[in-house]
């Protein structure tokens, strides 16, 4: 249950957690991203945690402006970006000050010594120089003149001093790449392809990267480089993927699997915008993206396109989901397929735009007026966003209903290696449009009944404009069962309300049963959903290693629940429900199954660590 990197022998580590931190303008996200990519090439398992402020450029050198990227690499399967970093790369005093408490005791600090002048120390709120006052005594400290060395390395290039200085993140990347024996070619090639159009920038970055690498080798500060061997992985072709890209690819895949054109109506919002960006690059798949005038127009346009026969999506985060509520109600009433993707972030209101939280479950479940049930699906890892998007689309199409897919900021920006799936293994989610009348009037003339339901799924026909003879009017007013005509009859409203509910509840029969990780009858059960999967898996594994009997069930379908969930939950001594909120799923489970489930809550804008969950579970058991 130790959380530190274990040195297997003198120079080999089984895993290491590195945190790059600097000013928002220092390029730390890019540095971390590059380190991640080369580690993926090296065959390590990995998980990442980008952690950046909402401000694009907060005042330079301040605590508010610190941007960090944590990456966990290992020679075995891992599930989280690591609890406490082993190595902190701090590009300025503010980065050191704000990140130090995360570092494990005895961990390594690599400082850009040039940034530690009086002004920056003062901006970071240091009264004394931490390098001199003994406060870093418990750590291994490396002071490196990154700025100076970068400037020297680029001195012969035709590049302005300011621009040259900006390459210092590549110096840091070069140094850390050397320390952990990362291959250099992928990064050098990447610099060339990324900055090829700006040769001086490419040259400066290359020079800085090489200088950092050479510095590691010659400075005799760092001993010999460590190795982190490749993790045993299932054979196949891999790529490194973030949750937002996986979501976008899942949407495209869903369109292909449904044989429908994809439409996205969306309004820019952190942390969901990257889905819009990614999807907008793939117009050659027949994908239409509309950057709407607001959140309501985003979903409105999507619903209009759904009426026209598109596989429609809208992407957003919490504030946007709140705004979309009325249109979701219309989609429920008109029974049109639509997928609403909520990349959750800290709330309420603007909250923590760039930080993760999973506190929109209640909003997704209940955030509409009237009796307005819909399916809720949650992704649990970055790559799982791909499959979750397909599943959400499958349900939307098959049951003619809006579906809410929940991801979160941690999944959205986090990355993991992904064994690229065989596309032939993906489900066929197509469903033909209705093209012929499905009824007759009193005189026997053919008639189209837009609300005549499939007896098995209770889904209504999807007939799109352009289909002769099936002209019909949809709307938000209550409809008569079958004809879809406006109807205010009390019996009809009750019947329609029950039908809409029964349709959604019936989805339970169409989804997989919940899979239990563990013996299946352990006295302790952990129920999770969403991005907590990695942390729960890691905690449960470690607890089992210590001899605890413990099961873990992780829910993809939050409404309706899998049919076996009642069975899985009952007769446990303890049920724990870790959530990045104040206890939302746990309330639903308690209400639904009358079980004394206990919440484990975290709302700090950060994912759980395995250690936190272990502590909470042990504490819960002891009570």
């Amino acid at each position: 249950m130790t959380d530190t990197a274990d040195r297997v022998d003198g120079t080999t580590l089984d895993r290491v957690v590195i945190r790059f931190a600097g000013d928002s303008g220092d390029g730390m996200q890019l540095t971390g991203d590059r380190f991640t990519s080369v580690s993926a090439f090296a065959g390590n398992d990995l998980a990442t945690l980008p952690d950046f402020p909402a401000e694009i450029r907060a005042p330079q050198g301040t605590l508010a402006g610190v941007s960090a990227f944590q990456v966990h690499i290992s020679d075995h399967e891992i599930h989280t970006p690591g609890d406490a970093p082993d190595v902190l790369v701090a590009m300025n005093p503010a980065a050191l000050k704000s990140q130090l408490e995360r570092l494990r005791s005895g961990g390594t600090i690599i400082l850009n010594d040039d940034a530690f002048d009086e002004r920056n120390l003062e901006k970071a709120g240091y009264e004394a120089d931490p390098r001199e006052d003994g406060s870093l005594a418990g750590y291994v400290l490396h002071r490196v003149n990154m700025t100076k060395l970068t400037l020297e390395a680029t001195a012969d290039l035709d590049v302005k001093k300011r621009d040259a200085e900006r390459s210092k993140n590549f110096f840091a990347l070069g140094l850390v790449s050397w320390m952990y024996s990362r291959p250099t070619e992928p990064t050098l090639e990447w610099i060339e392809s990324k900055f090829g159009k700006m040769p001086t920038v490419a040259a400066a970055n290359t020079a800085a990267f090489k200088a950092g690498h050479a510095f590691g080798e010659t400075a005799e500060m760092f001993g010999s480089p460590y190795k982190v061997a490749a993790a045993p992985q299932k054979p196949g072709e891999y790529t490194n993927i973030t949750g937002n890209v996986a979501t976008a690819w899942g949407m495209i895949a869903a369109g292909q699997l449904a044989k429908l054109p994809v439409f996205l109506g969306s309004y820019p919002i952190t942390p969901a915008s990257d889905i819009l960006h990614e999807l907008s690059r793939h117009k050659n798949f027949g994908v239409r993206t509309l950057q709407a005038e607001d959140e309501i127009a985003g979903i409105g346009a999507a619903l209009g396109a759904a009426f026209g026969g598109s596989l429609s999506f809208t992407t957003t985060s919490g504030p946007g989901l709140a705004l979309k509520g009325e249109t979701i109600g219309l989609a429920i009433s008109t029974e049109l397929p639509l997928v609403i993707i909520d990349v959750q972030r800290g709330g309420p209101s603007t909250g923590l735009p760039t930080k993760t939280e999973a506190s929109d479950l209640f909003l997704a479940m209940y955030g509409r007026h009237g009796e307005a049930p819909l399916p809720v699906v949650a992704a649990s890892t970055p790559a799982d966003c791909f499959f979750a998007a397909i599943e959400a689309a499958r349900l939307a199409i098959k049951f003619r209903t809006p579906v809410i897919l929940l991801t979160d900021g941690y999944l959205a920006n986090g990355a993991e290696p992904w064994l690229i799936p065989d596309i032939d293994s993906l489900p066929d989610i197509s469903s033909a449009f209705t093209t012929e009348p499905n009824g007759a009037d009193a005189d026997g003339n053919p008639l189209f009944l837009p609300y005549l339901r499939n007896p098995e799924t209770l889904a209504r026909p999807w007939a799109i404009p352009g289909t002769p003879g099936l002209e019909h009017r949809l709307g938000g007013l209550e409809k008569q069962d079958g004809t879809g005509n406006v109807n205010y009859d009390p019996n009809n409203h009750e019947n329609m309300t029950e039908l809409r509910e029964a349709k959604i509840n019936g989805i339970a029969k169409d989804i997989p049963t919940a899979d239990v990780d563990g013996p299946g009858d352990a006295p302790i059960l952990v129920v999770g959903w969403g991005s907590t999967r990695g942390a729960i898996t890691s905690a449960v594994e470690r607890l089992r290693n210590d001899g605890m009997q413990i099961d873990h069930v992780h829910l993809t379908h939050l409404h309706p629940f899998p049919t076996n969930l009642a069975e899985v939950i009952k007769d446990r001594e303890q049920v724990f429900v870790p959530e990045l909120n104040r206890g939302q799923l746990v309330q639903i489970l308690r209400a639904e199954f009358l079980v004394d489930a206990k919440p484990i809550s975290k709302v700090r804008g950060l994912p759980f660590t395995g250690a936190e969950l272990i502590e909470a579970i042990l504490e819960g058991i002891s009570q």
Partner: protein
Amino acid sequence: MTDVTLDPTKRGYWTSDQEVRWCPGCGDYGILAAVQFLHTELDVKREDTVFISGIGCAARFPYYMSTYGMHTIHGRSPAIATGLAVARPDLNIWVVGGDGDMLSIGGNHLIHALRRNINITILLFNNQIYGLTKGQYSPTSEVGKITKSTPMGSIDPPFNPISLALGANATFVARTHDLDRKHMIEVFRRAHDHKGASVVEIYQNCNVFNDGAYAPITKRDVRDDMMISLVHGQPIRFGAENQRGVVLRNGQAVVVDVADVGESELVVHDEANPNASQAFALSLLASDNHSPTPFGIFRAVSAPEYGEAVSQQLLSSNERIGPGDLKDLLRSGATWTVG
């Protein structure tokens, strides 16, 4: 359900089987008739025609047409129609709503649909009152309007829908009124034929909550002197004796006696002028319901239509990099193979 064997050149073909539920005497009946009659003359198919509305009395419109339709939520019809028009450029899409729906709760969507030049035809029923909620003042009600929500008179100045549409750079802007079926049909036809977003403001009488609001302009005995007919390429003249006209003074449209200025001084109406300034000046003539008010087409200019441009981008992306292949997409980032 309408018998599909009925003749498309007959009004009945375009009429749904639903009972019309507007108040007896409502101006909406006349507008519905005009739209249905227009369709008997248009060369369009019922299945390719869609009416989309928001909420309000006018918004019940789609239920009464035998085409495809969607009665949506308050204010959002231009947004919903935008999605449909972008996804389905093959359809004839009409958007119907009142002044509250389009200019208050849905103002944002209206101006953006106009700005983008979405291929939709918007019929804006302006009765200067909230009808369905039983008589509150609307964003087009005159200052001082006494209603249930403004017992001491409304304070806020109204929108001029034509000025607003021109300000949003709408490519087709017109005004008509519910008493003149022939005029409505001709304006609606032009609006329908226009490529891009068209908006037609219809002076519509709410005989229950705001009866006679437009009578000072459209009543038979005053209309010659109060209604200014805009005819493309013609000097703007009106009046029982054609004695009045419109001139531009410092960019402002002013009503004059032709005898005072001479016909050559009159504004020649140019609906196709790429610069909307003159149309805007004309729009301001309708400052209240007691001033001579222009009717007809203020602006009809050609501009790229949004949905077509979207389709074009899809095509050119296809030509440039070939049709999308899911297998390749999943390998478009860096990949590596494990033994």
